[in-house]
């Protein structure tokens, strides 16, 4: 067996993806591809009203339709104690309402039928009599004393959910009082939708003979779901199997437990048949997978030379009718307190208040690592606002205030310990690559001619890899992750992990980790995950946590194997294990390269010729409790041109320099960045979910909610710096969400920059052509 690096295919190599074999042939196994014997179909009746009493539900006509087997309502679930379920944020959520609906498109009843098309016909025949109630739509009005209550089921009769804060209020206020300069800005980061191309769904199958419930589910966190299911239904956990097969994009939208999963499970238990439920896009866009929706008031205090001193932020978080966000339990506002960003600040104080409204649950961790998009957007806009106020170049202000490279590990003003970073190097690289100085010259020339171009910078610090058990848990379950490796006699291996890919390439990257650590060719390593019957317990993939947690577990498990392998090596080489060293993917006698054995040799020996003081076999498992989060970072620079006749913004160039520490597979990381940048551009320019005053959603399908095509998406230019994480077993950080976090403010900053000479200081996203045109008209520079 060759042990040269190319044959091994380990760390740092752009190995082509193993999972592509099935996807390229149309042999992926997504939820809607499953066809179990006797399977029936479920479709959902949904409320047209945002807030209403249910006076009656008449399923007579539906039940009379040939092929309709059952209609399930809240009353049916209530009898089994399942009308409500816990959320991941320790709130509770209706599975099906007994007497009140609290958001438009809320699930009201479910039709079970023999055919998909009959189930749809059945839904159209269910008659629900609603009495509309005044909806609570404005989150500020929701806090007024005379506001209707969204959640009369709660003990506290208020729409206020919780208050959370971080940092030092007294010290921050003190600095603000005496600061040379204070800039203030209100920002709104609108509600948006995940829109993975595959919607949510499941096939629930209860085996009456075995008493076992198997659910194939679009879920990013199968084990946590299994535990919650067991606690809620009373079915013992070993009799529940959750399987995440292939998932067509998750991005955080497939973490929460949606009512459809639970109803389908109940339907399967009662009918004894497998029940498939898959959403239409319209259902998906109206009822689940919502994120953001933060109303922010930010202030930044600084010295007149541009030295930033303190940050003060108040935020109203619109959570919809249930707090069903997926945040670690002590962090109802996620990791929002990373809001001090890449900068040294003496003090900061951040407050967030969560509020209920008559909208579907929001706050899904949509490619934002728990509210980091909101945090980074705020600080990056504030830095530019300060720069504009002081008439300083925004790149200079950043360089001046960056946490210096020698200050790491760095304790931020809100208590995070950043593991490593080199912000000046990343920004300088981006500036050189895009010729920042040249762009500023060009901008000056164009301005003189009345042409509008802007340059926007975003230098973000991300915070990923939740997280250490002393601080992080979801519903009490600590946020470790896991890996189990078993090496077969002929030198190939099977690896099972507790995380769950939805396109990130784990079958390849995790094989690469093991290949690197064990010196076995990457092609000989199979990675499995997603089946709770076989995979070790993990908390799943979201918040860019897989490499920091399960990746670390994989390395540690591999090293446990190497420890044992060393003993077998000594046995084979007839020396003491202390005289054996691991070099170039081989065990060799110290200083004697000619005398070596490969892991393949060891594997065979582990079953045929092992020393008396070790067990047979070659396997290990590790549950990794990360000592800290990891802090990837980046420097993005965006150039925009504005059409004075239409207000349309065109991204001319976008350079992204990312640092995620040591990289497993550069090709895959690049792909993640491209996708993340596109998902960051979308809310900056195109996407927003809005509701009218009656709570009607304004974007209920892809005609109205605008996903960028290849024509609107620029050619992303990517580069990297490498600043390893000192605490991670192979120095890696997460990266999947960096670009979604870093891109929106780069674009927003670019547009404001294009208009700053007119006195414009801020624009909320999405930056629509009419927003820009109104500004141009107001300043007399619109064409036409």
């Amino acid at each position, binding site marked *: 067996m060759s042990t040269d690096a190319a044959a091994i295919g380990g760390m740092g190599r752009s190995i082509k993806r193993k999972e592509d074999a099935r996807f*390229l042939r149309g*042999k992926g196994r997504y939820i809607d591809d499953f066809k179990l014997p006797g399977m029936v179909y479920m479709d959902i009746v949904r409320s047209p009203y945002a807030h209403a009493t249910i006076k009656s539900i008449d399923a007579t006509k539906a039940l009379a339709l040939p092929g309709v087997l059952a209609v399930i309502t809240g009353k049916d679930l209530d009898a089994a104690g399942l009308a409500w379920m816990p959320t991941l944020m320790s709130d509770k959520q209706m599975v099906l309402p007994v007497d009140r609906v609290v958001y438009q498109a809320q699930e009201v009843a479910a039709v079970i039928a023999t055919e998909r098309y009959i189930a749809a016909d059945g839904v159209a025949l269910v008659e629900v009599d609603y009495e509309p109630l005044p909806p609570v739509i404005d989150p500020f009005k929701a806090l007024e004393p005379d506001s209707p209550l969204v959640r009369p089921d709660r003990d506290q009769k208020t729409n206020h959910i919780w208050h959370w804060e971080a940092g030092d209020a007294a010290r921050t206020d003190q600095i603000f009082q005496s600061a040379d300069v204070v800039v203030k800005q209100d920002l709104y980061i609108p509600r948006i939708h995940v829109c993975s*191309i595959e919607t949510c769904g499941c096939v629930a199958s209860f085996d009456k003979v075995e008493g076992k419930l198997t659910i194939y589910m679009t879920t990013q966190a199968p084990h946590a779901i299994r535990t919650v299911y067991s606690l809620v239904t009373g079915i013992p956990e070993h009799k529940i199997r959750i399987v995440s097969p292939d998932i067509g994009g998750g991005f955080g939208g497939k973490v929460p437990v949606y009512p459809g999963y639970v109803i389908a499970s109940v339907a399967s238990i009662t009918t004894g048949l497998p029940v498939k439920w898959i959403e239409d896009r*319209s259902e998906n866009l109206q009822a689940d997978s919502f994120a953001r929706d933060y109303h922010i008031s930010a202030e930044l205090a600084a010295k007149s030379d541009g030295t930033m001193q303190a940050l003060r932020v108040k935020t109203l978080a619109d959570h919809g009718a249930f707090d069903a966000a997926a945040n670690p339990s002590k962090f109802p506002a996620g990791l929002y307190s990373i809001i001090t960003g890449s900068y040294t600040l003496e003090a900061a104080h951040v407050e967030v208040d969560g509020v209920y409204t008559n909208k579907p649950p929001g706050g899904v961790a949509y490619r934002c690592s728990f509210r980091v998009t909101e945090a980074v957007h705020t600080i990056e806009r504030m830095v530019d606002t300060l720069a504009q106020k002081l008439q300083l170049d925004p790149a200079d202000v950043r360089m001046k205030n960056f946490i210096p490279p020698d200050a790491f590990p760095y304790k931020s003003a809100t208590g995070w310990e950043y593991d490593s970073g080199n912000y000046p190097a990343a920004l300088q690289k981006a500036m050189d690559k895009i010729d920042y100085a040249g762009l500023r010259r060009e901008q000056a020339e164009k301005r003189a001619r009345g042409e509008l171009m802007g340059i926007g910078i975003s230098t973000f610090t991300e915070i990923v890899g939740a997280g250490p058990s002393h601080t992080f848990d979801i519903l009490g379950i600590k946020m470790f992750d896991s890996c189990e490796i078993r090496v077969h006699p002929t030198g190939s291996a099977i690896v099972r992990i507790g995380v769950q890919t939805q396109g990130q*390439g784990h079958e390849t990257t995790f094989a690469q980790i093991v290949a690197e650590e064990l010196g076995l060719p990457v092609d000989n390593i199979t990675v499995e995950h997603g089946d709770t019957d076989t995979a070790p317990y993990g908390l799943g993939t979201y918040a860019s946590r897989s490499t920091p947690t399960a990746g670390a577990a994989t390395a540690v498990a591999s090293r446990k194997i190497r420890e044992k392998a060393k003993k077998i090596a000594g046995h084979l080489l007839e020396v003491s294990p202390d005289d054996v060293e691991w070099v170039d993917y081989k065990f060799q006698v110290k200083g004697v390269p000619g005398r070596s054995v490969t892991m393949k040799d060891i594997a065979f020996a582990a079953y045929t010729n092992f020393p008396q003081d070790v067990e047979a076999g070659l396997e290990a498992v590790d549950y990794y409790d990360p000592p800290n989060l990891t802090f990837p970072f980046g420097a993005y620079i965006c150039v925009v041109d504005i059409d004075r006749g239409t207000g349309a913004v065109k991204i001319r160039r976008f350079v992204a320099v990312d640092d995620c520490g040591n990289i497993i597979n550069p090709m895959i990381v690049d792909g993640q960045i491209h*996708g993340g940048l596109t998902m960051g551009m979308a809310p900056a320019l195109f996407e927003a979910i809005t509701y009218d005053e009656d709570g009607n959603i304004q974007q209920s399908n892809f005609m109205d909610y605008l996903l960028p*095509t290849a*024509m609107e*998406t620029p050619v992303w230019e990517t580069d990297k710096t490498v600043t390893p994480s000192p605490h991670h077993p192979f120095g890696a950080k997460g990266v999947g969400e960096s670009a979604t976090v870093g891109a929106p403010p780069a674009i927003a900053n670019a547009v404001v920059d294009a208009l700053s000479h007119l006195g414009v200081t801020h624009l909320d996203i999405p930056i629509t052509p009419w927003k820009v045109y109104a500004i141009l008209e107001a300043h007399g520079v619109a064409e036409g």
Partner: protein
Amino acid sequence: MTQHVTITINGQPFEADIESRLLLVHFIREVANLTGTHIGCDTTSCGACTVLVNGTPAKSCTLFAVQADGAEISTVEGLEQGGKLHPIQEGFFEEHGLQCGFCTPGMMMTSVAFLKDHPNPTDEEIRRAISGNLCRCTGYVNIVKSIQYAAKKMRDDQAAPTPAPAVTEAEAVR
């Protein structure tokens, strides 16, 4: 209100009595059991359902199966021939043109038809050609590279053809 149809998919005929309202995509997925063609929306916006109908790329969610009675459909399952990947599949593999894989079959079918008429496309022409296919994962950069890879491979194969096996099914239906 049922109709008898015969629809050939990847060279294989499928006969069935179906409702007129059965969407072609459901015929492909559930009558012919070819689940490589996917459904991503309900407003003809995403292109995940793209197949070739008599060689022309079509969003199969916006056609009734009865409209395709007698037609020859090509889907992703028909791209590989005799154990050999189609250049478009090879391109997507080599250039990391897919991540979750859900939009990929539709993306590839659009590309196959496009490259037939545009063997030497510019990147801009490619982006235009795939503007009816949405991807959420890749940001399109590598998809464009994948299609360029396939274009080059097909031009090279044309210039120095290897001994031809039997005509591929995919070509036979055009």
